């Protein structure tokens, strides 16, 4: 049979004995062997361990033991999450390897317990923030749709690995867009969860009050399957929410008829930096949802541009608090060039600026709550533009560029990036579905409804087909 491309299909095929976990895992390893040198998704491939896990999954199926939809599925973790059987680096020479030695992060523990075949540790932006520095000895991640372009960050390796089918699902982290941006530019789905929905214990911090760990997979449905495993309180994370966990699959087929979909035109659709093709594709998403019975409502989220500033300020200052003791030493040059320049910006804000950002956050949260009281979800573009050419990217320009992801980190809201088409030149486009706090089930339901009417999320980069047939 053809290798399944989604977790949902693979899980069904495994249970129908149409494919084994060993076969799926072998295919994943073959793709990694053919492609990874060019696209740089993996820091470490744990092939032997993955095959052992796959054999165990098959043995369990044969014995009637079923641990749920991830059993036997090729899966991988961003290398910012502690794993007891592999080193954790945060893609940096600086992280003390002893910090994560010999234990699992909460999410690693939960994924491992599903019986998934863990393929290894995935590349990321250094400490979930810094651009690749070729002098540090780590793989350079590249966009599989165009190797000259960025795969986004910071969960770049997860984005590439899902896009190319090296894995069927993975985990990323999102502080200002780090799940959604790579999902958007690599052409698959990625869910930033509500702040506190998924425990962060065992994850290297970036911005303590913003960080979240979320699923990345081809479809919204697959993200729901992963979220079902990783969501829920754990006392080791003092910021973990103890709101009850929903059944994310139970309502995913309910469609959008009767749902109210808010469209915030200001900033999210009228900013001069917004790419016209990205905008047009998002408008088509809105049309599709309207055709499916959703009610479209124009809304206004005031001061969204300032929300991006508040998110950046909060992230950078919280990161600087974590890193300052290392940065004020000879380790300064062990950080990547771009990483240290971004984190060190935290030294230039005042303590009052940080408090003011949190006062702004209170204001913005109230305004957003008013908007969400009248709608079930918001739709925006996920990103301002498709993947950029790495050689022309400009850090200074990024400081003033708009962000469609950061404001929702500031709010702590859940948000799904989902493919919405391609540019004329063949680059993925993406739309974002934003929900109220802990309303992941609604967000995923909207994403799934859209993906039932479209197939953008199933598209595979040409480089994969070429490698598979070679």
């Amino acid at each position, binding site marked *: 049979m053809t290798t399944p491309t989604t977790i949902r299909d693979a899980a069904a095929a495994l249970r129908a004995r149409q494919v084994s976990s060993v076969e799926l895992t072998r295919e994943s390893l073959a793709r990694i062997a053919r492609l990874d040198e060019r696209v740089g998704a993996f820091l470490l491939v744990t092939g032997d361990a993955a095959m052992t896990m796959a054999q165990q999954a098959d043995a369990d199926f044969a014995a009637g033991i079923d641990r749920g939809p991830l059993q036997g599925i090729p899966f991988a973790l961003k290398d910012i999450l502690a794993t007891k059987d592999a080193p954790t680096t945060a893609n940096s020479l600086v992280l003390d390897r002893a910090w994560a030695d010999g234990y699992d992060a909460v999410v690693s523990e939960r994924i491992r317990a599903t019986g998934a075949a863990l393929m290894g540790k995935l590349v990321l932006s250094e400490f979930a923030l810094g651009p690749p520095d070729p002098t540090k000895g780590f793989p350079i991640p590249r966009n599989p749709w165009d190797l000259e372009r960025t795969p986004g960050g910071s969960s770049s390796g997860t984005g590439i690995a899902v896009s190319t089918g090296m894995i069927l699902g993975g985990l990323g982290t999102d502080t200002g867009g780090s799940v959604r941006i790579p999902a958007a530019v690599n052409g698959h789905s990625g869910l930033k969860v509500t702040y506190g929905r998924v425990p962060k214990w065992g994850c290297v911090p970036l911005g303590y*009050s913003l960080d979240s760990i979320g699923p990345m997979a081809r479809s919204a449905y697959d993200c729901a399957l992963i979220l079902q495993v990783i969501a829920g309180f754990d006392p080791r994370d003092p910021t973990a929410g103890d709101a009850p966990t929903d059944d994310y699959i139970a309502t995913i087929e309910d469609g959008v008829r009767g749902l109210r979909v808010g469209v915030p035109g200001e900033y999210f659709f009228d900013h001069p930096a917004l790419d016209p093709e990205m905008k047009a594709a998002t408008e088509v998403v809105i049309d599709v949802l309207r055709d499916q019975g959703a009610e479209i409502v124009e809304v206004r989220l005031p001061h969204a541009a300032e929300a991006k500033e*508040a998110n950046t300020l909060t992230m950078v200052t919280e990161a600087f608090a974590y890193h300052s003791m290392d940065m*004020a030493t000879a380790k300064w040059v062990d950080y990547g060039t771009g990483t240290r320049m971004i984190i060190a910006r935290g030294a*230039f*804000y005042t303590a009052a*600026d940080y408090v003011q950002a949190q*006062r702004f956050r*209170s204001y913005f949260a109230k305004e957003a709550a008013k908007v969400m009281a009248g709608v079930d979800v918001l739709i925006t573009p996920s990103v301002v533009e498709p993947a950029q050419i790495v050689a022309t990217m400009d850090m200074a320009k990024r*400081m003033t560029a708009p962000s469609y992801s950061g404001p929702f980190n500031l709010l702590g809201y859940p948000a799904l990036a989902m493919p919405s088409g391609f540019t004329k030149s063949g680059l993925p486009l993406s739309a974002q579905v934003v929900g109220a706090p802990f309303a992941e089930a609604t967000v995923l339901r909207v994403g799934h409804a859209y993906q039932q009417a479209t197939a953008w999320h199933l598209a595979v980069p040409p480089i994969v087909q070429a490698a598979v047939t070679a």
Partner: protein
Amino acid sequence: MPQPQDVRAAVRAMVEAAGLPVSEDEFEKFVEMYPTLRAGADSLYIEEVRYEEPALVFSPLAPAPRA
């Protein structure tokens, strides 16, 4: 907060206060970047926020012990 008249001196003071061993090239980049950074922070001092409490959470209860 107004932009400092002497950005170079302000950046030098903040780099030294943080103890960052930056190169001259990096220092120049910080000098170039600082007005944009400052303007971003200043944009948050808006009238609507004047009487807001910060979104900071502190609990006087001791955190739960780690398992």
